[in-house]
């Protein structure tokens, strides 16, 4: 087992303990506080999904919010149908829609909804990825194309009011019932549902980054051409990671709808998409755990700052982002890594200094390997 894998598993274990035991304990198992925290955890999943495509494969997907939104709407459609009973969802009446659109009908089934929330984003992500990567689009152009797609997609959602609820999104949703369990978002059990999903997502992410697949992605990130000459179909690799990342984003979106009890086109806005990038950057895009933690920390900080500085919190967040990008480009993960290294060197040195005078009086080379 490599040290990196060991380090990641250790981090996962610590993180799991903090999330499963630490946080609920600190919050006194209070439903409201945990509900707020569940929101952060859901956002952690989408940040993690971005870390997979951006961190591992170097593909900056500024359209992550679009796939997140698809998952969110899939869940909202199911819950809206449930809330409407046999009647037509209310907003369709406002938009003079005479009967339930075809695309809504299968969302009566929860199973279909859950599948759609994963597969539709994956499918759409895959289409865009194939479209781009077959033509070897890379770097900034990936960012621009995905951004343009996001803007167009959000416009379509807003335009198709009869199907999507337009600007207001889908509101007035019923609670989810899962295998006979009616999900109360203010209950501790709901928090554990979301936490469990996050842990599962991290496990998937960790597996991917430690598989040979993850290795090839890192190779592609560094030099896609070189990797082609080893016989790897780079476009396929990029497409698959885009699909997986999109599916995870969709998953996060479904949870987000459950937490907030509505779906809104603002989940697909440019600023939300850039916010995901920021979370990922703050945590550290090289590690899926760090990216998830980044989302949690930034949102926690946002909640906290906005509590204390009603007027200045947005400004402070902006300043923090700029500072993070400038001074800790590899995020908290990189910072901790550097500190760890520095500490190691320090203790090496100390040990050398303490131990060596006894054995050998003359000065020797200390542990300053490059």
């Amino acid at each position, binding site marked *: 087992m490599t040290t990196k894998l060991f380090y990641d598993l250790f981090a996962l274990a610590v993180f799991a303990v903090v999330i499963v035991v630490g946080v609920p304990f600190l919050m006194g198992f209070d439903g409201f506080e945990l509900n707020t925290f569940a929101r952060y955890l859901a956002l952690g999943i989408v940040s993690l999904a971005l870390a997979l495509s951006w961190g591992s494969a170097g593909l900056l997907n500024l359209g992550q919010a679009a796939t997140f939104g698809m998952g969110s709407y899939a869940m909202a459609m199911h819950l809206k149908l449930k809330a409407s009973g046999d009647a037509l969802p209310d907003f369709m009446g406002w938009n003079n829609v005479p009967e339930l659109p075809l695309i809504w009908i299968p969302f009566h089934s929860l199973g279909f909804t859950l599948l759609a929330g994963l597969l539709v984003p994956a499918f759409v992500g895959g289409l865009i990825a194939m479209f781009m990567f077959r033509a070897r689009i890379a770097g900034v152009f990936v960012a621009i194309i995905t951004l343009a797609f996001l803007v167009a997609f959000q416009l379509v959602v807003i335009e198709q009011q009869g199907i999507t609820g337009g600007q207001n999104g889908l509101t007035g949703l019923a609670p989810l019932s899962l295998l006979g369990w009616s999900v109360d978002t203010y209950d501790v059990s709901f928090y554990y549902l979301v936490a469990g999903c996050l842990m599962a997502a991290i496990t998937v992410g960790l597996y991917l980054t430690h598989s040979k697949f993850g290795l090839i992605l890192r190779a592609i990130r560094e030099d896609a051409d070189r990797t082609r000459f080893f016989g790897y179909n780079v476009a396929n690799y990029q497409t698959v990671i885009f699909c997986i990342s999109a599916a995870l984003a969709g998953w996060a979106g479904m949870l987000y709808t459950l937490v907030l009890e*509505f779906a809104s086109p603002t989940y697909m806005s440019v600023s939300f998409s850039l916010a995901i990038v920021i979370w990922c950057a703050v945590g550290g895009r090289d590690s899926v755990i760090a990216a998830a933690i980044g989302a949690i920390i930034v949102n926690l900080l946002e909640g906290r700052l906005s509590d204390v*500085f009603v*007027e200045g919190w947005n400004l402070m967040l902006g300043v923090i982002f700029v500072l993070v990008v400038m001074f800790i480009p590899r995020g908290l993960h990189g910072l901790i890594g550097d500190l760890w290294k520095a500490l190691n060197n320090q203790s090496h040195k100390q040990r050398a200094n303490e131990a060596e005078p006894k054995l050998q009086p003359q000065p020797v080379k200390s542990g300053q390997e490059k």
Partner: protein
Amino acid sequence: MKRRDFLRGVGAVGTASALSAPAFLTTVSRAAAQGTDIPVGLLFSLTGAVAVVESTLHDAALMAIEEINAAGGVHGRQLRPIIEDPASDPATYADRARRLMIRDKCVSVFGSYTSASRQAVLPVTEQRKNLYWYPTLYEGRECSLNVMYGGAVPNQQQDELIPWAIENFGPRFYMIGNNYVYPKEENNYCKTLLEKHGGEVVHEEYVPLGHSDFSSVINRIRAEEPDVIFATVVGDSDVAFARQYHAAELDPAKMPVISLTRSEVEVKAIGGEAAAGHFSSAPYFMGTQTPENERFVESYKSRYGADQVTHFVSEAAYFQVYQFKAALEKLDPANITPETIRDAAVGLTLNAPQGEVLIDENLHTHLWPKIGQWQANGQAEVMLESQNRVAPLPYAAYEGQRCTGEGLVQG
């Protein structure tokens, strides 16, 4: 220049302690150790796109709260405003509303301008049986038992307006609005009125929220030559529309824009010259002549600056706080809950700046609709004022549905 303190900490919890490590994780309740204060939430965006309007609503509501406190509060208890900034983002509205209603145990929350933000706040409001005071005109078709609607619904804005417009300018209407539920619903209602009064729609179109280049729209208007431009464009879109309409030299005497959304705030940004000659329908204009309004405008200006304006949404944000206070006064101080406040508020009358308003059992407000023509000085001259207070019918466009004190009734 800016009037708010830059880094104003809110609540009793000091900055340092609030940011300290253990408190960082858990969101400490600011309601703790506050004795007999009555916590009320203020949920208006101070940042982001909607802040243009919502910051004025915030100012008006806060002013009312502080006036009440200065006059001794209610039952000798002070109202304690708890301020949140939802940053124009529906998800943040939902999050902050949870804080106010659950953590801070506010007995009422005053907030928001757009329909999207109201609907984001609804789930938690209804689930917690809290009370949300919403001051904005809106599209109707909602009948929540937990929202106090202070603004006009379609019938209050349009019933007198449409026949008047047909009579004065002609029957051919061009509908332009932003692409969301409010303009669509207003237009739906407008169409039923047009049918009744012999008008017609020559074109109906919707532009995205925040749309800023109206060249194509103006070309179309020029080609269609309608009698009336029936506008439900909001915010900075409306400002851009009005300025470009003026720059294109379309004559308000021949083709006036009649807006349901344009208020003194927008006109100030449009510029009096460009806005002059066009019309708005609203229950309140800044120049309304009542003693209550004189007081309201004067103290608003002295507080926030002589260049500030009041308008039909900020007026509602202001009087709703007084309605809240009046409801509290009817209650036993030991029994103040959102639901008792609501029940006490039904049937209340209050001398608001626009005139005497009444809270209907459906929780909407009986208002005094007016039609104003904008002047070059940025004020409206009232052309027509309703003789009676008009009752709110949030389901006016839909036969067989009525919003009552028990909620929506069919048939």
